[in-house]
Every structure is written in structure tokens, then in C-alpha cells.
């Protein structure tokens, strides 16, 4: 299935997709489907809907590969941005409101719900944990609720009983703080994620 594409860069795989090379999409799937699925499942808390999102994201790439611009970040980031946007759309739709309420009730009962726990099993977990650990708890919590919980910053403010301005500031500052730490750790370049 993977053919000659195992050693190809993400950018050249996307070019191959524009020539309808199925094996190129298969290789991109092999590299990134786990992350796409993991994020969709995390945000939606529903395995079946998460799988549908994964299908949609890869079929979108197949149909419109030109939407990926290598000058504007990595393919992984592009795919996860699309995944998150789609998952949040589903989450915020009327039909999913009930599911969401059930999910939130469940999450409230869960202990250890945080980024550090989530990244525990990664190959790069050690470095990433160090980076996440640089975040003050308040910033980390705001980012978790927005990103993994699919909440708007206004909703996060309501949940945490903090002013909206404080929350949007914490999200931005937290992301900037992690970016700096990731640059120092060599996990991203100052312009984007490094290729390894």
C-alpha cells in the first residue's frame, strides 16, 4: 500500500495526491491518522463520530490537496487544525448538545484529566512533558478546556468563573510560552515544527 513513498516528505506526498496516487494518501494516513483520530476522539468523546471525522479529513485532503500550503506550517498541523475545526463544529451543533452534556458530566467525574496525562505515552513524551510543565496551572487549564473541551474562551471563562479577558490572555500566553520552550527543546523551529 505504501509503495515508494515511505521515504518521501509530507509535501511531496501531497503533490503525489494531486496526481491521484492512492499510495501517497495511504502513507500520509500511516503517518498522521493516529494523531487525527486521537484529537477527534478526545474532543468528541465518541468513537464512531471520531472515525467519521478521520474519514472526512483524509477524503478532503484527497479531493483538495492544494488547500495544504507547506509555507504555512506542517502537514500534521494542517490536518489537526482541520480535524479540530470539524470536531468543534459537530460538538457545537444542536444535535450533539445532549451528548455533550453527558460527556461533561462524565469528565467532571474523571480524575487526572490533563495534558500531562495525555502525552504520557508519546515517544517524545519526556521533552513534551517538560514543556507542558513550564505552564502555570491556570494557563494549562484554560488551554485544555478550549482545545480538548471544544469550548469558546467565553465558555471557559464561565466555567472557571474568571473574566473573559483573563482567559483569552491565558490561552495566548500559554501557547506562546510552550512555543518558546519547544524551540529551546528543538522540537519546533522558530518558524514551525522541525522536520524530525
Amino acid at each position, binding site marked *: 500500500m505504501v509503495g515508494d513513498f515511505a521515504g518521501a516528505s509530507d509535501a511531496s506526498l501531497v503533490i503525489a495526491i*494531486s*496526481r*491521484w496516487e*492512492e499510495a501517497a*494518501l*495511504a502513507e500520509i*494516513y500511516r503517518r498522521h*491518522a*493516529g*494523531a*487525527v*483520530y*486521537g*484529537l477527534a*476522539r*478526545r474532543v468528541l468523546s465518541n468513537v464512531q463520530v471520531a*472515525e467519521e471525522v*478521520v*474519514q472526512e479529513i*483524509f*477524503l478532503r485532503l*484527497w*479531493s*483538495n490537496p*492544494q488547500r495544504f500550503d507547506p509555507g*504555512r*506550517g*506542517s502537514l500534521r*498541523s494542517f490536518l*489537526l*487544525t482541520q480535524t479540530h*475545526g470539524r470536531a*468543534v463544529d459537530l460538538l457545537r451543533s444542536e444535535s450533539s448538545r445532549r451528548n455533550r452534556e453527558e460527556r461533561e458530566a462524565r469528565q467532571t467525574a474523571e480524575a487526572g484529566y490533563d*495534558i500531562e496525562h495525555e*502525552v504520557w*505515552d508519546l*515517544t517524545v*513524551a519526556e521533552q*513534551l512533558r517538560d514543556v*507542558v510543565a513550564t505552564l502555570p496551572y491556570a494557563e494549562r487549564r484554560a*488551554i485544555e478546556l478550549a*482545545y480538548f473541551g*471544544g*469550548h*469558546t*474562551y467565553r465558555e*471557559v471563562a464561565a466555567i472557571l468563573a474568571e473574566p473573559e*479577558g483573563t482567559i*483569552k*490572555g491565558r*490561552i*495566548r500566553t500559554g*501557547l*506562546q510560552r*510552550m*512555543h518558546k520552550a*519547544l524551540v529551546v527543546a528543538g522540537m*519546533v523551529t522558530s518558524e*514551525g*515544527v522541525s522536520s524530525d
Partner: protein
Amino acid sequence: MTETEIESLLGAYALDAVDADERAEIEAHLATCPRCRAEVTAHREVAALIANSGIAAPEGLWDRIAVELSPELPVSAPTSADLIAQLPRRPESPHRKQRNYVAAMFATAAVAVVIALLSLQVVNLSNQVNSNRSGSALSSAVRSVLSHSHRTIVLTSAVRGLSATVAVGNDDDAYWVSSDLRHLPSNETYQLWTVVRDAVVSLGVLGSNPNDVTAFRIAPAMARLMVTIEPQGGSPRPTGTPVVSAPI
């Protein structure tokens, strides 16, 4: 919002955590502000790293995606295609019979020139076959190719189990000779494409009857043949994923 207010929302925006009206305003600003675009890109790279929970996608999910890759009908139309924007338009008359000797030119010609020449070579005689079934020149040509030394290219769809056959004569005359594709309604047509370097070039419309014989010409620069379903009259560029395809 002021620029400062917009900047203060860039983190929340990157995480899809702003309201729809704020989103629209931020995106309008991003269109003209490279610095803020770069900030959003950086935020999203961070998010992509912390999103990775290290789990694998479920077994069998790829198979369900692969089934969708060669649908019998187009799933969506490419938009503002940077990669495909360089495509030449389909020739005005797909019935033109022009037999240029282009082989020597491939060595030096610019891609655009190559593509233009390829487009001029389209020879689609399907209408003639339809209107003159008893012994048209095309039928004779096909019979001649098939009865002499020739090679075949079989275009397939692994997922759908469809195939179509192209016969290629010794002088690179090629004929679409048979397929198990379905008949299309009269407002749709099959269209044949080739890939030259990274550009997709139309080789002509095949009509709604997938068994009409169509003639075209193979050139050394062609890497691949593909067939899509298009609106009647054909499209300047593919609007759907291929029904069948094959490397040349």
C-alpha cells in the same frame, strides 16, 4: 475590534475558541497581516504537538477511506487549485485531427509548450463512430491496431473492481477500446486525462457510452491515464476523483 483586541484573541482563534463573528473579523485581519498569520501558525504547531496522544487509528478505518477514493460519481470539485491552476483549457474542438510529430520536442520544450501540443493532439471520433457504425475510418484503424503488434494499458480501480482497456499501436496511436464502466446519463460524459509532470491535461471527452471507441495519442511525457465523470461537453480540469486510472 481594534488590532490589539484582535491580537489578544489569536490564541483562542487558533484553538477554534472564538465566536463566529469574532472569527470572521480575525480572518479578515489575517488576510492582510503576515505577522498575525505567523503567530496563528505557531500556535497551531504547538497545538498539534500537545494533541498527539500517541494512539493508533482503529483497524479497518483506512479500508473504509480507500473505498471512497474512486467513486463512480465525483465527490467534490477542486477549488482555486494552486497545483492544478496551470492546466491548459481543453481544446475548443475535440474532433480536431492533428498529428504533429512532437517526440523530438519533448527534450527541450517548456512544460507549457508540451502541454499545449498534447492538447492539440486530441482525436476524439466517438461521434463519428456513432453516426457511421458501418466501417468508419476509426473502426478500421482500431481493427488494424488490434490485429497487429500492440500493447494494452488497463486502467483500473482497485476499490471498485472496474477496468478499461486502451490499445496502443507501434506509432503510439492509442484507442480506448473497451471498459466495464456504466453508461452515464446524457448530461454527463467520461473524460480522459493524462498527467504530464505535475499537470493534469485533458485528452478529450469519451461520451456517455463508455464503449464508444476514441482515438488519441500517447507521448513520452505522459505519466498516467485517468478517467473522470464530467458534465456534458467535458471540463477544463477534473471536477472529481478518477473512476479508473493507470500509469503508462
